């Protein structure tokens, strides 16, 4: 099979001894590229194309496209006098195009190299890979939501503002907080918004110069310290204890007039509900500081407890986790922040208000008597995600959301109880919330690491759990099944993990250290990628030149 550059896509097949000889680096590289599929029993039946039935190889766009090919039809405009002020582009852009059928095939083939929730169990702890209902996709594409401009007159987008207002009402009700800033674009952006509100509140009290310390437990997501540092706070860690909880006396020891806030994840990243949260909140407030809660794990307690009752001042909600807007291979997310009465006046613009039966949008700081700290983003935030999240909430209802939290916690504990005899639990045998944390103590002397174990799970058809996080546990394996899994699915997953565990303990190292064997790629060399970064495709050197 030749690609458009006239180079063989699979020169290694059919016993050709060294088909790339004399063809230059690029050809040699492509020889490697082509052999995408794993070895194993199929390895002894090479194919001419390098494809293996449904497992198709797909070259880069730049290796199959041409700059004079397009998949979009437009007529050239009639003669007109350009008004570009002499700044017309003179160089080639160098962007290849594909016709529509070619583009379709290119991306479908790429998609087939991906694992998604719809493919199988995706127990990535703290990331909450639950079912993405397609109703929500359909709703987000209604023209009144997807085909409206953020700056068209507010009289023409009353329904869109109503939706934002309704989403806000749901979030505030579920959390028992005072208000919500909808606009943050993702969880980390929500953290930034919440911490900015805290900073603004501290400055409003005239303590901006003195209160500059933020307490962050060692088990926190990396975004927490990164966010605090970004806006000039000094991060002080709260040390980890061997029971997985943050202790109020440890917090108290660090409190003083210099402390602005604590950033506490609850339920925490060890999969535990912080059982001293009320005492911690009280100590924080008594010291004149604020309680920021990382709401990444809110999905465990929706309908079971309200963060506002726990003393939280600000909490972001990852709509893509708790309310199942799709993760989409890494985004887009959405991170609305609910705020307590103490922080509500500082919420950033814009926000929606209802006045005389009409929704209005406050877009400028001086349009309100409150004290907004500024603006997080252009326009009004992630509308497309708001629609999906509200569709989720309406579908589940108050009863369904509570049931979802309970099922998520039940599923995690079922896995925990079913693996407790083989795997090691760093904080003892006690109930967890929506995710169960194991460490790698049980793998000691097997020669198998957490990473190896994860890669062997890939061969069994599972996406691995979160590995090596939280950092407070050695070789962490954080498993979050979510409420979307049936008992049968969990039973097979548990049986698989037990089989793998016993194989590791029996010394069947090869099953792990060489894994994955059956994925579209074998283990990838990340060190090489970082040492000499290749971040874009560059045209190959002409063959004749390269061969000299």
């Amino acid at each position, binding site marked *: 099979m030749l690609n458009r550059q006239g180079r063989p896509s699979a020169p290694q097949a059919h016993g050709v001894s060294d088909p790339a000889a004399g063809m230059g680096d690029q050809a040699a590289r492509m020889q490697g590229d082509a052999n995408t599929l794993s*070895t194993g029993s199929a390895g002894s039946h090479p194919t001419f194309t390098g494809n293996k039935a449904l497992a198709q190889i797909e070259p880069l*766009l730049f290796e199959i*496209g041409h*700059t004079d090919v*397009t998949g979009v039809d*437009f007529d050239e405009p*009639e003669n007109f006098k350009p008004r*570009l002020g*002499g*700044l017309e*582009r003179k160089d080639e852009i160098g*962007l290849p195009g594909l016709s529509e059928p070619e*583009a379709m095939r290119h991306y479908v083939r790429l998609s087939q190299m991906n694992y*998604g929730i*719809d*493919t199988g169990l995706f127990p*990535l702890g703290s990331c909450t890979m639950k079912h993405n209902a397609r109703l929500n996709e359909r709703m987000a594409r*209604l*023209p*009144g939501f997807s085909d409206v401009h*953020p*700056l068209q007159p507010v009289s*023409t987008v009353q*329904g869109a503002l*109503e939706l934002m207002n309704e989403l806000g009402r749901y979030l505030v009700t579920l959390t028992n907080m005072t208000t919500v800033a909808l606009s943050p*674009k993702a969880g980390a952006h929500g953290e930034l918004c919440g911490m900015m509100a805290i*900073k603004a509140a501290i400055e409003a009290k005239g303590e901006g110069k003195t209160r500059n310390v933020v307490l962050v437990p060692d088990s926190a997501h*990396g975004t927490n310290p990164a966010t605090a*540092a*970004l806006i*000039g706070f000094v*991060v002080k860690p709260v040390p980890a204890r061997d029971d997985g909880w943050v202790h109020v006396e440890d917090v108290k020891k660090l409190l003083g007039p210099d402390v602005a806030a604590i950033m506490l994840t609850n339920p925490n990243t060890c999969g535990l509900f*912080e059982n001293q949260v009320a005492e911690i909140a009280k100590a924080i407030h008594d010291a004149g500081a604020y309680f920021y809660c990382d709401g990444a794990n809110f999905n465990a307690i929706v309908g079971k407890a*309200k963060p506002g009752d726990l003393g939280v001042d600000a909490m972001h909600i990852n709509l893509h986790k708790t309310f199942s807007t799709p993760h*989409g*291979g890494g985004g*887009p997310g*959405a991170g609305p922040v609910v705020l307590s009465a103490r922080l509500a006046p500082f919420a950033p613009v814009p926000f929606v208000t209802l006045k005389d039966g009409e929704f209005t949008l406050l877009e400028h700081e*001086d349009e309100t008597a409150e004290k907004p*700290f*500024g603006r997080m*983003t*252009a326009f009004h935030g*992630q509308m*497309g995600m708001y629609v999906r999240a509200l569709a989720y909430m309406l579908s589940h*209802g108050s009863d369904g959301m*509570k*049931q979802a939290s309970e099922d998520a*916690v039940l599923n995690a*504990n079922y896995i925990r*109880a*079913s693996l407790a005899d083989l795997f090691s639990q760093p904080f003892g045998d006690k109930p967890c919330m929506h995710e169960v944390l194991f460490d790698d103590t049980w793998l000691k002397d097997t020669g198998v690491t957490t990473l190896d174990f*994860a890669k062997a799970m890939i061969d069994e058809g599972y*996406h691995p759990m979160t590995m090596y*996080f939280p950092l407070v546990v050695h070789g962490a394996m954080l498993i979050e099944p979510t409420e979307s899994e049936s*008992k049968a699915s969990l039973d097979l997953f548990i049986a698989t993990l037990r089989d793998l565990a016993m194989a590791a303990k029996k010394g069947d190292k090869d099953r792990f250290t060489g894994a994955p064997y059956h994925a579209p790629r074998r283990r990838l060399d*990340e060190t090489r*990628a970082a040492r000499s970064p290749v*971040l874009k*495709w560059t045209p190959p050197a002409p063959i004749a030149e390269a061969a000299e």
Partner: protein
Amino acid sequence: MRYLPLSDTDRGEMLARIGVQSVDELFADIPKTMLLKEPIDLPRRKGELEVERILSRMSSKNVSASSVPFFVGAGAYKHHVPATVDHLIQRSEFLTSYTPYQPEIAQGTLQYLFEFQTQVAALTGMDVANASMYDGSTGTGEAVLMAHRVTKRRKAVLSGSLHPHYVDVVKTLSEMASDDVVTMGPDVSGTEDILSQIDDSVSCVVVQTPDVFGNVRDLEAIAAKAQQHGALLIAVFTEAVSLGLLQSPGSMGADIVVGEGQSIGNALNFGGPYVGLFAAKSKYIRQMPGRLCGETVDADGNRGFVLTLSTREQHIRRDKATSNICTNSGLCCLAFTIHMTLLGQAGLTRLARVNHANAVKLADLLDDVSGAEVLNKAFFNEFTVKLSKPAAEVVERLAEKGVLAGVPVSRLLPEAGLDNLLLVASTEVNTDDDRAALVAALKEVL
């Protein structure tokens, strides 16, 4: 409940295996007084049909761009997106996958990110691009922080024709981080004297082209002056299609290019989600924010892709990270790259010409309307019109007549005394009939 597979029998068996009587025993760490006994006071579950009814009712209260003559821009643009794009981004394996932390089973995402980075680098004329940011405005904030890291200075100079929301985002971030920001006054004509602001204390100059008033700006002199003083030029765009026809920011000397990619592949979505494009000179790679996808090989020597240079990022570096960013704009970025692949250079330049031609036609028509005057000499697909009446009022009256005419400058800059200015955008979606409708309605109102 259609989304929850467990039956009550399942639940009972599972509780027994766990060794507890009721699910509430699993919630025992929640303080007793705070554990809710009853469902929260919100409506009960609903079937698909009912949810669809509720949301459709809200949707129908809005006037969608496709249903009227539509000329609204100012940072988000109505373009035609091929049907293929929306089909492909809804493929399960794209839609329901996560950040490619397990690259062996995420090559689909990683390969398109690598292709996306290559496309963005080519489009902007830069060495490298990242795997996308949340949007153009937050990307601009990140670009300023990056410039501070590179130059070890902490003062940004913002052009007076940078989109006002972008200005606000940068100012908010800078004030919070105790960095300096100098903002030039509103610059309707694109003739501000930004050069005089550049000295050895400046970390970066942020200039948008085409700018928020539609002017096409030559960046070369600014780049030269910035370079002379060790400052960086951050070039911003909000209309990615313009790069099909205009000189790239890279060719004019930009050090960092950041822009809004919504125009390619993405719907208006009332402001989000969008996709931020972010590119830079290669010497600054290690100071870049956001995810980067790189090429490598697997254990069999086959080409593959991974997320790389993650030692910059928060999950490794924590409070020393280059940014707190932990995501990109995955699906929007995919939509961008698919649409760009369908266009190719040939399609993109033609699309850009159609946009420009439509805008030129409209500008000529509006210039002939008494009480309206186009202010721009050079523009791409958007320009500023000076009206004889306050633009907000005119836009409202035209909306009543079923024409969405543009963005009043006062919506973005209420205190600037520019109340009679209207930003008007025209893309490939506008027909001769649309233009005639706008002109006719405007004649009635002015």
